[in-house]
């Protein structure tokens, strides 16, 4: 077993262990760490497949940005993100999921075994040598900015639209929901609750009388 095979085995095991951790962890923080393990394993496989540029992109964008964004949101939600769902449908769906996974892995193993079955290793597609610049920044960049320039510009437009959309969706709606106080006469300045959130709340120093009755006339 050469060093390359060892790297492949290590990365494959890391990928599978991370993926299983991601989907099975009850604590989503552990799931995010499993996703990180899978991403780093796939980056190692990219390195083995002579895709140095994509290895760097994978580590920067996925491990550096996407996973950090996930952890940000998990920290923002706090304990609510890991509250266990107590629903009666959980058992059967888990059984179906496990069965689906078993069937799919069996199919994958059978198809892989079909490739190796008759001729031993001869049925497998071995990698041939590629040019020295395969997967380098120069090679990918040349292709990206010659054949893929239009898609590249579209991708940048997509990212801008996505960021603006994310801001628009996630923005707090406090400003638009808060009721504006209409002032018709000077009396209105001193009537009613000072803030809409105090509308139904009695004043402690006022003998429990709700503020609303003051300005109800």
């Amino acid at each position, binding site marked *: 077993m050469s060093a390359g*095979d060892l790297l492949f085995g290590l990365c494959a095991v890391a990928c599978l262990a991370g993926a299983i951790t991601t989907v099975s962890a009850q604590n989503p923080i552990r799931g995010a760490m499993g996703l990180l393990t899978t991403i780093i394993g796939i980056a190692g496989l990219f390195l083995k497949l002579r*895709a140095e540029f994509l290895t760097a992109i994978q580590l920067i964008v996925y491990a550096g940005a996407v996973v950090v964004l996930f952890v940000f949101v998990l920290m*923002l939600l706090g304990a609510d993100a890991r509250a266990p769902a107590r629903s009666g449908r959980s058992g059967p769906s888990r059984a179906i999921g496990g069965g689906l996974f078993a069937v799919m892995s069996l199919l994958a193993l059978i198809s892989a075994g079909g490739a190796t079955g008759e001729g031993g*290793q001869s049925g497998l597609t071995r990698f*041939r040598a590629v040019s020295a610049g395969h997967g380098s920044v120069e090679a990918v960049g040349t*292709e990206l900015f010659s054949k893929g320039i239009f898609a590249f510009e579209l991708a940048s437009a997509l990212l801008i639209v996505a960021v603006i959309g994310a801001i628009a969706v996630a923005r707090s709606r406090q400003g638009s929901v808060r009721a504006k106080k209409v002032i018709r006469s000077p009396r209105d300045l001193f009537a009613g609750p000072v803030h809409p959130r105090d509308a139904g709340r009695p004043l402690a120093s006022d003998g429990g009388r709700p503020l609303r009755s003051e300005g109800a006339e």
Partner: protein
Amino acid sequence: MLSDTLEHYVLLSALIFTIGGVGFLVRRNVLVQLMSIELMLNSVNLLLVAFNRVHGETMSGQVFAFFIIAVAAAEVAVGLAIILSYYRLKSTVYTDEADLMRH
């Protein structure tokens, strides 16, 4: 057995994709579902790069993987924003509570 052939990469990619798909279908935590989608996208990236290694005269597979990474980043940004908005609405991240459009 652990030799470095295309079939091993296809097998590994299929397994990761299946794990991601099962996770998306089985889990009820919408954050974990989003992570499962990331797993599936990553497995497809791995497949594209592996096939590009076989057909090494062009770089199209790696360029495709590059675009998938860009789209995945946009998808995560919008998805997490929707999750935050949903959490603000329902105070939970479990998809069982998202039954507004159930007839």
